[in-house]
């Protein structure tokens, strides 16, 4: 019984992750501006992968590979927002017409 509960909960998490990935893909092609697209990509990279791997961990049970998946989640949560931050920073530094896309706070 407990195995079935684990399996169903894990599958639900996995399906949620898949839906999030679909939203990410749609958003990455739906928007034109780089910051919007970057937001969508980072959304999938952190939330989507986190939820998917959480589902896999629940299905897998307590095991050594579960720990590895947790490490993957931590690694991606460290790495992906930083790379998005760098892209955003590069865009803000190089784009001269930033005001046409958003409000820019004057310092």
């Amino acid at each position, binding site marked *: 019984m407990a195995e079935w509960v684990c399996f169903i909960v894990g599958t639900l998490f996995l399906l949620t992750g898949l839906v999030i990935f679909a939203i990410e893909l749609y958003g990455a092609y739906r928007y034109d501006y780089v910051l919007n697209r970057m937001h969508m990509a980072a959304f999938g990279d952190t939330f989507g992968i986190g939820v998917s791997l959480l589902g896999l961990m629940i299905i897998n049970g307590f095991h050594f590979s579960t720990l590895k998946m947790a490490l993957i989640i931590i*690694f991606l949560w*460290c*790495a992906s927002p*930083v790379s998005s*931050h*760098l892209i955003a*920073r590069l865009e803000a530094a190089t784009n001269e017409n930033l005001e046409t896309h958003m409000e820019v706070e004057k310092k």
Partner: protein
Amino acid sequence: MSRKKTEQEYRKTFAFRFFRWLNAEEDRYLDKVEMHPQEPYVETEEDIRRRQREKNALLNKLYGRKKSKSVRYLELFYKGACIVFCGILIYLLLLTVSYLPPIGVADRPVNNEVSRRYIEEGLDETGAVNIVSGMILDYRAFDTLGESHVLFVATVTVLILLRADHKKKERSSAGEEMAYSLEEAEINDRNYEPKNDAILQMAACILVPIIIIFGIYVILNGHLGPGGGFSGGAIIGAGLILYLNAFGFQKTQRFFTEKTYKWVSFGSLSFYCIAKSYSFYTGANHLENIIPKGTPGAILSSGLILPLNIAVGLVVACTMYAFYVMFRKGGF
């Protein structure tokens, strides 16, 4: 006693005219030929158009930009020949595929005595639990040596092509730290990139040690499980590149310079050469190999495979880092 000619008589002689011509004292055409000063060159619209028309006509004639009949036929023939050739190639390849043995049959030619030997006796002969490691670093170590040298040669080629030699500026005063002025830095800003980013530096502080430790783990466990020198070296190289991105060249130059690259690569490759020469020599002459195999599964086992993995890993890590540095700045 020579008779001296008067000026008027002398002017009529050949010698006078010859020396005048020799010294270019006289312009023979001045005041004799009708002369006009050159008008400034003014090109009318008509002239420009004519010139372009002539140029186009010449180009068309030379390069066939406006295609003549024979060229058009040739192109048609070329396209047709392409299609026919591709069709023949596809037919031949499909014909070859139809002769291939079906997948999953036990007596395929792939399942010959070579792979059987690797699988059955590899553990005894090499001492490596990971058969792939045993294969590439023991049975086929010569091949892996070539691959490592290919990496080294590729780095040398990139160095030849992309190296940008910065002129070493004479530092006039001891207190002057910056060798480049601000304007030069503005033009050549790759000397100073990346601009220090606190978030990236924090992430790098956390991630770089983990990445490098993981790479070392992969290298050291190459004979026990999946991994080995190539993959572990790539991981370490990625960690080094992340560190470089976060903290800039001034920090990495403290431990990784051109000299480091040179000696690490040279040391690894020559160690590989010498170690494998020894084992080939003893093997070919039926001498006893003094390197112990150890117990399979222990970290210090499988003879030469562990040190060779380390050598290959060092070469790969250095190569990745050197490639990145070369494409980014053109020097270490």
